[in-house]
């Protein structure tokens, strides 16, 4: 079976596209799939840092497209997973140095030997997004439970529909169940209601994500992390497995109740 190209996009910046791409890449690889992750954010590359592969970069996406390097040469193998590769973005060029057709050609070459090709889309709705969208078989839309992020996710969804890339599935990132309970944060139901999309993952807010990103060891590798578990579940759903959604509000509720009891006493 030919590999599947999955683009991770959001419209708004800073909602967690790159974190999601890195973690899904790791999760899929740990499930034994052959995975390539491509950083399409040319000029502002990040994915290599989050995956801890920054110091291994020799060639990048623009080098491949412009024929300075062979595809194989430019794929950086992950330190821990043999079956996970990164194609980094160029740091010194801009989005115009790659065309949507280049991305289709590149991913078509990768399809035979890999199960999943994940593309980390840049923020915005311009060329960089077009580059990431063109080769996609499926699009995952990352959003946060806040009005501005949901608005941009809606805009992106319209563009994805217009490009006939299917409705896309939603990753709701950085949800804080206790804030939702207090009515101070949009709930997953609110977001689904506005966007009318099906949801592939709800990722709870987790401080471990930040330290994981800084150290280049994605949070999925940390079995204590709820966010890591949630990303693992998204990866399993991507492979077609039916995984029930985690219950996110047990634990904090219990501790909070305990804390309140102690306080009252």
């Amino acid at each position, binding site marked *: 079976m030919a590999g599947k190209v999955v683009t991770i996009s959001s419209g708004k910046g800073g909602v967690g596209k790159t974190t999601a791409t890195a973690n899904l890449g790791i999760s899929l690889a740990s499930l034994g799939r052959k995975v390539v992750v491509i950083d399409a954010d040319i000029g502002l590359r990040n994915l290599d840092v989050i995956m801890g592969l920054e110091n291994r970069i020799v060639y990048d996406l623009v080098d491949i497209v412009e024929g300075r390097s062979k595809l194989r040469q430019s794929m950086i193998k992950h330190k821990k997973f043999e079956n996970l590769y990164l194609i980094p973005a160029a740091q010194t060029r801009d989005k115009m140095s790659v065309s949507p057709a280049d991305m289709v050609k590149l991913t078509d070459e990768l399809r035979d030997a890999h199960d999943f090709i994940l593309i980390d889309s840049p923020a915005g709705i311009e060329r960089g997004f077009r580059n990431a969208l063109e080769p996609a078989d499926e699009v995952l839309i990352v959003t946060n439970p806040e009005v501005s992020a949901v608005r941009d996710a809606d*805009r992106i969804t*319209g563009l994805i529909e*217009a490009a*006939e890339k299917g409705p896309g599935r939603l990753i709701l990132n950085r949800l804080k169940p206790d804030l939702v309970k207090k009515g101070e944060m949009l709930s997953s139901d609110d977001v689904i209601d506005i966007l009318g999309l099906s949801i592939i993952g709800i990722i709870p807010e987790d401080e471990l994500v930040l330290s994981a990103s800084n150290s280049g060891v994605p949070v999925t590798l940390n079995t204590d992390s709820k966010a890591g578990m949630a990303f693992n579940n998204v990866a399993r759903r991507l492979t077609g497995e039916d995984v029930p959604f985690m219950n996110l509000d047990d634990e904090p509720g219990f501790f909070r109740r305990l804390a309140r009891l102690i306080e009252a006493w």
Partner: protein
Amino acid sequence: MQEELIAIKGVNDGLLIALSTTEKWQLVTDQLAARIDEKADFFAGASITIQLGTRPVPKYELSSLKALLERRGLSLSLVQSESETTRKSATALQVAIENGNAREAPSPAQETAPVNPEETGTYGTLFRRTLRSGRTIHSEGHIVVYGDVNPGAKVIAAGDIVIWGKLRGYVHAGALGDESAVVCALDMSPSQLRIAGHLVTSPPGRRKGVLPEVAYVRDDQIIVEARD
């Protein structure tokens, strides 16, 4: 009364403006500018197709027309013409051009209902999808949306607007001044609702027990009423 040199109708999510093929260019463009300025709300942000028929339009005339539209925040997206001169002008200005006789099918991304300008009765446009943020649709007739209108989307019609879904975006019915126009929605919570020159916004907060509602103008005010 001044002779009508301009005919306007809604197509896809833009406007088609047919200009007289015989009257003096200056007169036609002056009248077009006046029409747009008069109903700035209706035209706001629309993408414009200009139909020029057999009139040969040299480059400097077409370029001034383009500038006229752009000054008013409108984009000239297409020129339809049967004249070779006009076509050359459009190509030189990098404006899309189409043979006026053979209108190509609209792109599949934008579904459209045929609008018959000869029809003196009412006509409408049906959009059978959810309108997402950033999308604007116009009609000189009525508009029916079978789907939601999300925040950030705009629906502007000279006639009535019916939303068979949730209305959360911007709607303007009776945009050419018709105060008898109505807006109907299954779930009425627009970011802004206008009928002719009147305007209301939705009260903040969550609503319970959503019913289909109708908005209309009575005594210079927009009334929103449940229809159960």
